[in-house]
């Protein structure tokens, strides 16, 4: 199974705080989006292991953009 973290706000990726292969819990912060100079935390909807990181710092994201894929 896989879980994909999607952007909940449009904006710029301020930072990704996890690394590939890392195990994460549900509700753990995976990345931060900067929307209009306000930082919004992106929390994981599920537990799992980080498989792919699809975004980099300063990438533009829209609501629903795929950001990080977890294996679980």
């Amino acid at each position, binding site marked *: 199974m896989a879980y994909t973290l999607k952007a909940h706000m449009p904006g710029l990726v301020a930072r990704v705080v996890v690394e590939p292969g890392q195990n994460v819990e549900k509700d753990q912060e995976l990345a931060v989006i900067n*929307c209009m100079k306000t930082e919004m935390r992106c929390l994981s909807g599920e537990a799992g292991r980080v498989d792919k990181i699809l975004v980099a710092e*300063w990438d533009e994201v829209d609501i629903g953009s795929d950001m990080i894929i977890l294996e679980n």
Partner: protein
Amino acid sequence: MIKKILIANRGEIVNRIIRTCEKFGIEAVAVYSDADKDMEYIKNAAESYNIGSAAPIKSYLNIGAITEAIAKSGAEAVHPGYGFLSESAEFAAVVEGMGVKWIGPGSQVMKSIESKSYCRIAADAVGVPVTPGTVGIVSNVDDIYRIAHKVGLPVLLKLDKGGGGKGIEKIESLESREAVQDVFDRLKRIGAMAFASSDVYLEKQIASPKHIEVQFVADARGDVICLGERECSIQRRYQKIVEESPSAAVNEEDRLKLYDYTKRIVKAIAYTGVGTIEFLKGESGYFFMEINARLQVEHPVSEMVTGLDLVEWQIRIADGENLSFTQEDVRLGGHAIECRVYAEEPVTFTPSPGVITKLVFPEENDGALRIEHALHTGYVVTPFYDPMLCKLIALHNNREACIGVMKAALEDMKIEGVSTNIDVGLAVMEDKRFISGGFSTDFFAG
């Protein structure tokens, strides 16, 4: 006079600067990111240049791309607006190095005042009160304990090069040495990452302060003229929402004292051009807080009560002119209030990007109301920049009448498609604390 100015900014301030340029027959050059390619001022400017993609670091903070536009356009001067690179000594030095005039204080002065502790030391040296704490840098937790014991809790740890409400941590208890060490380490880390400096200084938190700032203009001869004060205590998350001039809490004696403090500091640091000194007013008086080396968002309230065009004076001083009027010539007339309209949820203050589907502005009748914006129906409020959409500035004979003008203006203003804080502005105008004038920066906390 300068013939061609490049405006290194976006949004309402571009229109504001173009207006003064038109008055003096100066050609204005606009720059824009991919996200701003439909801005209407691109048509009003004599020339315009795309400087990169939406992310500020790739466009409005991209010194290389802006430098290229300066060279291509042949602009004789650069107006940096506010925010973005407006207080970057590095950018100012690059512009000066191209033989282009920087509309602001010189890069040397800017480099010095990037350090808040330099400014605190300068103010202290000329006898202006600074908030109790360290004038210099704190080197370890022992320093924090020693000074906090001396000045009393709570204290604020601040990044020497922080800004925009970022880089401030409050310490309310000294019980856990580990907790204090954690806060200190965290702040140093943020500083190194975001501001390229991990220097920290400490100051005592002033209880329920008022934010009072003095607008000034200074020339190369060393003449400094103060243009009244602005009260900016109505803030949320260290960001201003409502500003006014004069302040209901500043009497003539206080005003003269603030003018004296301002002139002493400005002369000590050899600042030229238009600028602002921010003070905090606590129970025991006024304390120097910081210097803003740029045109401020809230400059229109000072223009309304003095009748001066501050952008004009920025350009004149940058062009080497001296002040042609004296302090005695400055007459403060009437009362002005500014309300900033933000694209945000009114209760939570979270940002609200989207498309403006309906836009109705109040009447700018008989000079009682001024509207500063760069909006149009169909305007896309992108998530990449500051949420400020527009500014309403009201002027009337006295404060009460001015509040009435602002209330009517906010009631007539309609923006649909994105959430705005228009109702927050209205609530402030109707709030007893605001009407009495006895409010502090705690306005939205209590």
